[in-house]
């Protein structure tokens, strides 16, 4: 087979892509990593989360911070401008800031693991449902819809009655909640891609179903899934907080934000600032996660946009 003469059209190789790149660059897009310098609130969200994560991981190394279980001061003191007294002390004289940070460690760890479980299982189920349709899709839809209609408290009560109350139970309960959401998003993404030409082209090359799902379809699900992880995590934090508040969370004395609020309710009329710490923590964390989620959603919708 003789070689085809290249059709005499082309500029030198370097020039060929210069045009596309020039016009490409002229239209604003955020494909390259840029700090979210557009908005100070976004800056705040990222910085806050970074600080929170680092602080909760390295709580023991923060100089001057007393242990959470160590009663060091007067009872129920109002917040002061000192490291340990930033959020004041609780009814047992423990530093609320310290407890909040230890609580952050617990909460973040639980929510992260639960999210990971949800994401992986949900994604796999959603991909199978969207790719094969039929009975698989019906089962997954059924699960997602049932989960969406159950109040989280019922789920955890059911689990507690079966396997008792513990960190593992909480992780499992939270993990079950969001599987449906991730599955639905993944399913939608897969269905949208099923008829796309590049999937057909890969089939024409002889790609197996597995290869199609992993190499062609999955990478295009990443944007939507990534963008929704932070807000769902925020939701789990609130759920965990609510469950702890109601007493069904991680058993005391492990610090948890919800538990801290719960134990302060009796004294609220006299010492309203006792709940200041955990509430600030929850609000700022949820806000930051949602803001990061918005940012990711925005960035993801720009990338891959053609000229």
């Amino acid at each position, binding site marked *: 087979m003789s070689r085809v003469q290249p*059709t005499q*059209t082309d500029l030198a190789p370097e020039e060929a892509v210069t045009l*596309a790149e020039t016009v490409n660059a002229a239209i604003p897009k955020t494909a390259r990593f840029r700090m979210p310098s557009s908005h100070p609130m976004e800056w705040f969200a990222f910085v806050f989360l970074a600080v929170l994560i680092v602080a909760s991981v390295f709580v023991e190394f923060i100089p001057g911070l007393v242990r959470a279980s160590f009663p060091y001061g007067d009872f129920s003191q109002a917040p002061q401008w000192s490291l340990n007294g930033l959020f004041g002390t609780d009814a047992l004289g423990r530093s609320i800031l310290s407890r909040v940070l230890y609580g952050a460690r617990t909460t973040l760890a639980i929510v992260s693991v639960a999210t990971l479980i949800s994401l992986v299982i949900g994604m796999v189920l959603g991909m199978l449902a969207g790719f094969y349709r039929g009975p698989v899709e019906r089962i997954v839809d059924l699960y997602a819809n049932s989960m969406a209609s159950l109040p989280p408290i019922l789920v955890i009560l059911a689990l507690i009655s079966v396997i008792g109350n513990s960190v593992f139970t909480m992780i499992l309960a939270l993990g079950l909640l969001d599987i449906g959401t991730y599955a639905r998003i993944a399913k939608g993404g897969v269905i949208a891609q099923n008829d796309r*030409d*590049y999937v057909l082209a*890969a089939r*024409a*090359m*002889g790609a197996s179903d597995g290869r199609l799902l992993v190499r062609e379809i999955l*990478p295009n699900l990443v944007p939507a899934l990534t963008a929704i992880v932070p807000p769902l995590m925020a939701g789990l934090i609130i759920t965990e907080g609510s469950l702890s508040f109601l007493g069904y969370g991680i058993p005391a004395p492990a610090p948890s934000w919800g538990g801290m609020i719960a134990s302060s309710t009796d004294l609220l009329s006299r010492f309203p600032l006792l709940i200041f710490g955990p509430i600030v923590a929850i609000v700022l964390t949820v806000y930051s996660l949602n803001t990061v989620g918005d940012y990711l959603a925005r960035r993801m919708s720009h990338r891959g946009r053609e000229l």
Partner: protein
Amino acid sequence: MSDKVSRKTARSAETPALDVFLHDDALLKVRDLSVRYRRGGKTFVAVDGVSFDVAPGETLGLVGESGSGKTTIGRALLKLLPKADTTIGGEVVYDGMDVAALSASGLRAIRSKLQMIFQDPVSSFNPRRKVQDIVGEGLEIQGVGRAERLGRVNRALNDVGMSLQMVEGRRPHQFSGGQCQRIAIARALAVEPELMVCDEPVASLDVSVQAHVINLLQDIRKNRKLALIFISHDLAVVRNVSDKVAVLYMGKIVEIGTGDAIYERPAHPYTRMLLEAVPVPDASHKIVPGPIATQAVSRAMPPSGCRFRLRCPRAQSVCAELEPKLSPMPSGQFAACHFPHDELAPGILAAV
């Protein structure tokens, strides 16, 4: 072998004349292909009993408008139709092998021989993958090693006037439409096919880029002895690239023959309507507009008898009762019409 022969004679009894057009040594033989979709309880027939042959190195043009089934035929040949709610009937024989009867491994072996190029080159690429991976995908699936793969990818890109160096590290959205289409051709060439289905490959390209891609396809076809099935609604492009042309209307072939026969002496009224509707860059006389009232034609419920009769200026009562079959015409093509045309197409000079 005797099996095939007996099947052939059985079909010959139904359409004896059509045999002249269908030959045994063709690379691809399609007999009575039909595709039905079930959607919302109703059945839509996208392709209804289509038969044609493609010889090695030959280009068959499939012409039709939306709803004619031409795209569906292309996908059915490569087994790219969705499996759910779709019924495929008829027979597709490639190189002597019945494609429907192949095992999974047999199908994989055939995959590299039959390739496809899509209409929108940009969307036929996964936007998140690099171009060199895209072009090498077929080879990777076949298990070709990385070094050899890069070599073959480079050669395929050279054949379309590009090179590995040009595309290295880049993604599809960094290339223009024409370049993307050439990359798509390179992707198909990399696995060394024998037959390529081109589904409206130049429809989304500018005229100047169209010319490049058409010339490129011609060159490749000649040098590699590729058979092409060229699907398009653009009759001028089809005229340029095809040896044989089949005109499709509502899932059926209404006329099939050599390009010369069809363009010079179109027999079927629909073919004539198509040819007259094509805008020709000739400003020597102003176009006189025809009647403007229109009729809503439902595609789900084709008319009885001849499907074209509601739009046909020649329709008579027999057209509603009896569906016309493909019959031979004086110029050598086959047309399915009770009252076919015989005169030259307007604008064609009579051959001296």
